[in-house]
């Protein structure tokens, strides 16, 4: 075959690069293209733009003035912003820590007990996560309602005087936080019970042979065995807590005063209500960095103690 000869000569020296023949070079990029274009256009580019805007003092209308890192410094110095981040930290207790403790309590009890019908409980416990956060928020607004809300009526049966749960400066933040607990405790419970059932029973037998009581058993076997699940539960709930916008916007709009203002709410109100667009972008970027560090940190800790 005369035509094939030059081609054969060229191919004698093996394939250039380490690519099997018939696996076209560019087809991988082609498959990636649609996802990447839309992702780059509507996540990566805006992220870059947010970082850029965060370096300016801009009201969204007139020309901005260069601010350098002032907007970031403000995150620590501005009282409203500092308060918002402190509130986020407090909310972490309700979104992440409290569900985790509930989950751990259940896991500790269920360590050696096989429970039937777990699928049913799981379906019910997950329900609050499926309902739109706006609806959950409305629901709880009705429950917390001071005059004839369900909670105050319930407390009334025991002769306890009702409160203005969302209107009180001291109660508003924990009240919002408890809604977070309501939404996410199911996740922690299901994650941890699933995890605890995977711990080999021989470990518990060994612990008992060594004379460990229920509490020691929990510390020595259950807790270490759940490391991975704890990390997942904490990461997820922490991210949800930091992204919490819908709930605050609907229930309190950050009030009373700024008692329930959180970073996500600050982004919204600064960018679209009070014309501090640069500052809003800086808060958004800061939030991203914090989420990034926490996710990475929790997983690093979980891996290291393996």
């Amino acid at each position, binding site marked *: 075959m005369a035509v*094939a000869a030059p*081609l*054969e000569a060229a*191919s*004698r*020296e*093996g*394939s250039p*690069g*380490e*690519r*099997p*023949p*018939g696996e076209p070079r560019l087809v991988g990029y082609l498959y990636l293209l649609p996802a990447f274009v839309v992702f780059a256009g509507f996540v990566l580019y805006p992220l870059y733009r947010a970082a850029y805007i965060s370096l300016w003092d801009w009201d969204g209308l007139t020309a901005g003035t260069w601010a350098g890192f002032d907007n970031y410094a403000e995150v620590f110095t501005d009282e409203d912003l500092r308060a918002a981040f402190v509130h986020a930290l407090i909310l972490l207790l309700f979104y992440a820590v409290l569900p985790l403790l509930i989950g751990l309590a259940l896991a500790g009890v269920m360590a050696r007990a096989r429970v039937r019908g777990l699928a049913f409980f799981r379906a019910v416990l997950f329900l609050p996560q499926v309902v739109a956060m706006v609806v959950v928020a409305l629901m709880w607004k009705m429950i917390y309602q001071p005059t004839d809300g369900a909670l105050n009526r319930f407390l009334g049966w025991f002769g306890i005087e009702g409160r203005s749960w969302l209107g009180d400066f001291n109660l508003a933040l924990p009240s919002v936080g408890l809604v977070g607990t309501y939404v996410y405790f199911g996740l922690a419970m299901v994650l941890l019970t699933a995890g605890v059932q995977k711990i080999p029973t021989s470990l518990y037998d060994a612990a008992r042979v060594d004379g460990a009581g229920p509490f020691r058993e929990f510390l020595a076997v259950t807790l270490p065995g759940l490391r991975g699940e704890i990390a997942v539960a904490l990461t997820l709930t922490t991210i949800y807590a930091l992204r919490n916008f819908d709930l605050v916007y609907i229930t309190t709009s950050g009030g009373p005063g700024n008692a329930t203002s959180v970073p996500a709410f600050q982004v919204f109100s600064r960018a679209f209500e009070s014309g501090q667009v640069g500052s809003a972008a800086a808060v958004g970027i800061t939030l991203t960095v914090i989420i990034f560090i926490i996710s990475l940190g929790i997983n690093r800790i979980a891996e290291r103690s393996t």
Partner: protein
Amino acid sequence: MAGVRFEGVGKRFGSVEAVRELSLEIADGEFMVLVGPSGSGKTTALRMLAGLEAISSGSIFIGDRVVNQVAPRERDIAMVFQDYALYPQMTVFDNLAFGLRRRKVPGADIQRRVAEAARVLDLEALLQRRPGQLSGGQAQRVALGRALVREPQVFLMDEPLSNLDAKLRTQTRGEIRRLQQEVDTTTVYVTHDQVEAMTMGDRIAVMNEGRLEQVGTPEELYERPANRFVAGFIGSPAMSFFTGAEVGLNLPNVVGVRPEHVRPWREGLIGPLKGRIAFVEALGRETFVGVDVGEARLVVFEEGRAERDVGDEIEFGLVESGLRYFDADSGAAL
């Protein structure tokens, strides 16, 4: 039909040389077994022939055609995978027909070829099942059938029996050999099992650490191993190696001897040698007795069930015609 030729073929994965300068000619219609321990490069060689790995250097020919740059589908080959790789959601029929449909074979032809393969492999009753509903042996036959219907120039088989149990493996060994002789298609068969290699191959290529150690018929490899590696790899129990000094005999170089050439002492053997019994493997029809002599360990072969105890002394000798000599440094046969 076509033969296969490797010409100085090499494969590097980063700094690792998986296959070095492999030159091997496989005749048209020949059943060639590539055998070697894991990491010897045998599977990589097969995958380069299939077109699933790029070739770092050298050339591979199928017939007269260099296939280095030819896509797998254009090579006119069919492959049987270790895990069978059957398409789980398709019926057995569709699994067999898949490759033919992709090649735009006319429908009537597909029907005929699948029916023929199903008949030969006894799959007729299973054609409407899915792979999940098959036993290991059945799935294995479907995998063979998928290669068979393609009527390719070359069959490639990558450890196709390693997921079967021992009894089925022995049985299928014979079946594959019979099929291959019927269709008379060039076959390259990869295995780590030297028994499989010895019983199936027209010729065997022994590989080790990316190098081709020896190519030959099973008999050649057994009788005239090219070096210590081949000598030790082929045959079970393995050949024993020792130096004259270790056992107190006046023999040069490194000596290798297979168990059947090490017998309890009688006149006409080289010896007598004395040693302490380290293990006894009584298989019923024969007994292998491991004996420590100085630094060396030899395996003595005895007919029938021998009454021996570990720790006892034994006197034995060597059959002169069974001794093989190897260079102490290079390991090459002398």
